[in-house]
């Protein structure tokens, strides 16, 4: 019973974190058709920025939105001045470009912060825990879960309920038709990468709060994000959430039962099975994909 509850809470936390990371990643993949290797670096950047803001006296919970705003700007600029120039080229160019970017960002982090883990001392109000049926649930975990689910809901609302969200979905479905209704595709691209980086930043900030920030965190979580994205499929908000659900539950199940070393293996195997059984990739809702 206790272990079941523990697994349940662990899963919830992971589902929340993976969701926001994968939503952002899937957005760039779907709209720009770029596999953004630097997504991990965005996550890492978020982690360090939150850490820095906290070290300069900002409450960690205020540091998160500040981090998100900063990363939105970073994403926008990177799209406008870098990714824009490879979008209509072969796939491999986008991968190479974002990999180069990843190198630069991680290298800079190593230079300024060293490989050391940087963790945030939680303010007193985040330090306690509640005991639910023997499973310990710390306040900080509760808060992180709430923030992650709140952000997921915001993204859903934005994409599904606002005109700009509809314009992003329209651009993904048919770029040319989007132009014909007067959508400025370049601006949509900037916005897309901005939102994606913002979500990655939030994920990184929350991870820094939960564990710590380190130069390696980006690549480590990028792998999970990849698994979640392909598991759930592109093209809908529900997709990454579904993927997060599957990976979150299986990861926490496997790590609690067999040990953490098996969790990546399980995730990767799941994805490969899905890809073999459905070679075009798991799709989102039937008509979300053009």
């Amino acid at each position: 019973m206790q272990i079941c509850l523990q697994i349940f809470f662990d899963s919830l936390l992971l589902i929340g974190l993976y969701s926001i990371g994968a939503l952002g990643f899937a957005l760039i993949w779907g709209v720009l058709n770029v596999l953004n290797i630097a997504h991990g670096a965005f996550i890492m950047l978020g982690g360090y920025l939150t850490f820095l803001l906290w070290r300069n006296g900002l409450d960690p919970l205020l540091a998160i939105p500040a981090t998100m705003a900063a990363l939105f700007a970073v994403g926008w600029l990177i799209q406008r001045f870098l990714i824009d120039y490879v979008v209509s080229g072969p796939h491999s160019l986008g991968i190479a470009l974002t990999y180069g970017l990843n190198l630069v960002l991680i290298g800079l982090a190593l230079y300024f912060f060293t490989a050391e883990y940087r963790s945030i001392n939680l303010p007193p109000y985040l330090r306690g825990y509640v005991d639910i049926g023997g499973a310990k649930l710390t306040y900080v975990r509760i808060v992180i879960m709430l923030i992650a689910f709140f952000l997921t809901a915001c993204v859903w609302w934005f994409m599904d309920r606002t005109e700009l969200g509809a314009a992003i979905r329209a651009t993904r479905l048919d770029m040319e038709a989007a132009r014909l209704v007067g959508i400025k595709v370049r601006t949509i691209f900037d916005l897309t990468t901005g939102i994606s980086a913002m979500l990655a930043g939030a994920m990184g900030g929350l991870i820094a709060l939960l564990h710590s920030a380190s130069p390696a965190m980006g690549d480590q979580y990028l792998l999970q994000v990849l698994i979640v994205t392909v598991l759930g499929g592109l093209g809908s908000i529900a997709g990454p959430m579904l993927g997060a659900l599957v990976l979150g539950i299986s990861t926490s199940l496997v790590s609690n039962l067999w040990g953490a070393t098996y969790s990546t293996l399980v995730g990767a195997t799941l994805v490969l099975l899905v890809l073999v059984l459905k070679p075009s990739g798991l799709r989102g809702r039937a008509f979300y994909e053009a």
Partner: protein
Amino acid sequence: MPLSAARDRDGIVLALLVLGACCLPLVFGAYGLRVATMVAMYVALAQSWNLIGGYTGLISLAQPAFFGSGAIAALIFLVNGAPVWLAVLGSLGVSLAIAVMVGAPTLRLVGHYFVVATLLVSEALRNLVLNLNAFNFNGGISVNIVSKVGLTALSPTTYNQVFYYVMLGLATTAMLAIFALERSKWGLALRAIRDNQRAASALGVAATRLKIAVVLASAALVSLVGTAWAFWIGTVETNEAFSLTLTFEIIVMVFLGGRGTLWGPLLGVLVVLFINETIGVELAEITQVVSGVIVVLVVLLQPDGLIQIFRQGPRAFAPKTLAANLRRYRVR
């Protein structure tokens, strides 16, 4: 196929290069030889990726699976008392088996799904080996191969020279493979598949079979390099053997030099290793930033690779050319 004059020159240059490389141990000290061995190893790896990524257009990240299985399987064979020749052939067999299992389903995937699938194959295999606890092997632990094979009897100099020639042999094989491919009808077929698979099939090219053959060839070469690497460094550690970073590094080299060309990958290897060796290991993070910036600049300004200097001369770096390159794939 019409052989242009430039292509005839390729053969001569290649022969001279190999000949020169054979003489290097006569002039190089230990450090120089180590770097030369590295160059040879990277050239072999870069050309095997070039075969898949450059000529066939498949952005495969499955190379660590072949490199790692080549290294680890050889180690396991040795630990269990197999002779060296069996370890080499056995690990090659294991890698090829993995290539068949990986290639058949993933080659049907389109676009980024192929990239992600191959990446996950590598990661899955790494995690599998990390958790492997059988055949006198315990995944996380590093094992000293040299002592197992009894190579300790060799003097360090001879030892290093042996592995220099082994790597040089593999690099030469890789260069020759590309050289021959460029002149054969199969090279033409691969480029046709990359440009338009449907049209190629309609003209009688067995596209799927050819792609599997290329994956196997590339895997075999990478596996052999992996085995040689394991013997060379002596101590094998699983995470290092299945390193994605190494594969990305290789892909970067191919891109920098020029994918789908004979000389591009060699140029890329030299450029990257030069940066690494000059900036130095002490400032690894700066090296990383510099190579990252170079990758970004090359992708944006010279997407066909630095090899363009040799093809177009100084014109390749005229501001006008660079500006045109920059605009080439830009979204409106």
